[in-house]
């Protein structure tokens, strides 16, 4: 069989179609929230949430076993969503309160989440294979319900991440200024946390809880190397995320590899490649170029107000000269207004 035949057979497999669709959705949406997390220096938040999500998966299993549902997996994703949201809100709460202990709190969630998950899956009668599927990704069992669920979550993530970009950028770039501008900082923080949790839940199927964060962060890290603005960073990261997910998943069709590991290694290879090539592409910028407009600005300043000569005068003379300056400015203002 030629490569082309294999490719065609992959694309005609319904399972693979669904899997590729989910991978594309996940690949495009995860970096959106990842861009905000990187800007906030919370790149590891996704990891913390992912670990907690594993406990959620295990609880879903236990609940499923108790309720006697046909498939032990049926409640795994809802369990992960619930646990991820609770975990994200917990982390946000800790971050908001005491900044100094935030990393310790994150560490607790890491260890607690993973240990709790492994313990509970054992109690629920899960096998090592089940566990590996959740840890490193497995989409050999996706059905059309999974596709719809993923599409719904992706729409939410993209809606929040792109629709509220100005406010979320303001928040992540300079939270203090966002607060001083009157932005509803607490509500926006909670929104970011919940959206991150949903991103983890949707990505878990494809890359597994241990590598969820890689999908949110590594495409952003690559984009950061080349994009000239925040907006461009997000756009480039979305495109790269989509590409590595689809390509990585396709590779696992040809070789029996873990999808999460394949996608992550692909993304990191991309990072290394771009980091090496970038200096070659980087055009020299003229950073020290004087700004002609600014120079013109200053020359007018001197002419109009007589600064800084006035500033050495004292007390009321200074105030008077300032108001005189404003007055002498007035006729010109009027002309330009009527013009």
């Amino acid at each position, binding site marked *: 069989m030629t490569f082309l035949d294999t490719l065609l057979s992959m694309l005609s497999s319904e399972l693979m179609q669904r899997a590729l669709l989910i991978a594309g959705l996940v690949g495009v949406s995860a970096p959106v929230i990842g861009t905000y997390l*990187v*800007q906030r*220096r919370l790149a590891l938040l996704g990891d913390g949430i992912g670990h907690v999500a594993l406990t959620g998966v295990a609880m879903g299993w236990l609940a499923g076993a108790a309720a006697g549902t046909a498939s032990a997996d049926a409640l795994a994703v809802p369990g992960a969503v619930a646990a991820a949201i609770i975990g994200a809100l917990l982390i946000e709460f800790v971050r908001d309160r005491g900044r100094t202990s935030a990393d310790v709190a994150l560490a607790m969630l890491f260890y607690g989440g993973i240990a709790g998950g492994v313990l509970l899956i054992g109690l629920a009668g899960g096998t090592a294979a089940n566990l590996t599927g959740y840890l490193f990704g497995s989409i050999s069992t996706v059905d059309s319900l999974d596709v719809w669920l993923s599409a719904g979550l992706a729409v939410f993530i993209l809606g929040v991440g792109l*629709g*509220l970009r*100005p*406010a979320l*950028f*303001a928040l992540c*770039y*300079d*939270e*203090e*200024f*966002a*607060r*001083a*501008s*009157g*932005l*509803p900082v607490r509500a926006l923080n909670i929104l970011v946390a919940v959206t991150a949790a949903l991103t983890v839940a949707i990505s878990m199927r494809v890359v597994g809880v241990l590598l969820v964060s890689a999908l949110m962060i590594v495409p*952003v890290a690559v*984009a*950061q190397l080349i*994009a*000239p*603005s*925040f*907006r*461009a*960073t997000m756009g480039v990261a979305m495109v790269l995320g989509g590409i590595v997910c689809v390509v990585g998943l396709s590779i696992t069709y040809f070789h029996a590899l873990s999808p999460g590991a394949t996608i992550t290694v692909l993304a990191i290879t991309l990072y290394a490649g771009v980091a090496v090539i970038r200096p070659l592409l980087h055009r020299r910028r003229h*950073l020290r*170029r004087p*700004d*002609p*407009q*600014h120079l*013109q*600005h*200053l020359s*007018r*300043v001197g002419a109009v*107000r007589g*600064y*800084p000569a006035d*500033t050495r005068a004292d007390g009321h003379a*200074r*105030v008077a000269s*300032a*108001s005189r*300056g*404003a*007055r002498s*400015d*007035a*006729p010109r*203002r*009027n002309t*330009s*207004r009527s013009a």
Partner: protein
Amino acid sequence: MRDRAGRHPAVQIDGLHVELGANSVLEGIDLEVADGQTLALLGANGSGKTTLVRAVLGLVPATRGRIAVYGADLVMRRAVPWSRLGYVPQRVNAQPVMSVTAEEVVAAGLLDHRRLVPGSHARERAQDALGQVGLRERSRDNVHLFSGGQQQRVLIARALIRRPDLLIIDEPLSGIDHDSQTALAVTLSDLQARGTTIIVVLHDPGVLAPLIHRTVVLDHGRVRHDDAAGIEGFPPRAGSTLPSDASDDARVRGTDRAPHPDHHALDLTTGRRGSS
């Protein structure tokens, strides 16, 4: 207290105490800043100047006392007219993580409690605001590659883009070259002529001295000196730039943002008024 025309002062602080951690930083501040006044806040390092202006912006909670901005108690965050306030912090808070253009930073200044997404023309307005601080040509450049003084000017543009009625600037002169200080003085003098209230934290009035109506000196969290003597007699705004009565009333009711006769900044670089 309202003035004779029934207007609220820009800022009204009554018996303000602020504790940060174990420190008692502000100990009983009473201060009323009239609409249109330019107030210089002076004091030694650690005297509480930054804390005071941060408290006025709701960034640090009052342990005791009350702060009202245009008559709105800061405790009721949603009732505060945020779009009328502009703030230039003492330091750049943002971390240099990824490329962020000056335009993107400045456009963030258009947002407030009701506006989570800036309207149309955000980019043009950001460029105009950057023009006011002489950085129009750099608007697409990464701010993290700017010098400290240039970054400070970007933050000033981020406050100016709001067209604030109350501008709070924390130490705008430190680390800024002489020409840019002069340019800032002109920008502030334009704002003052339009009736903007300005609270500026300073160590040395320098080029801003001619603009200052009133000086308040803090010392260990208390007001040690307040030459409020200048309040009554502070020079009236120049005749033609004084808002007309009608628009002044509208402004007080908070209905006015656009029709203020002198609302558009005179752009000294082009001699034209900025677009709204």
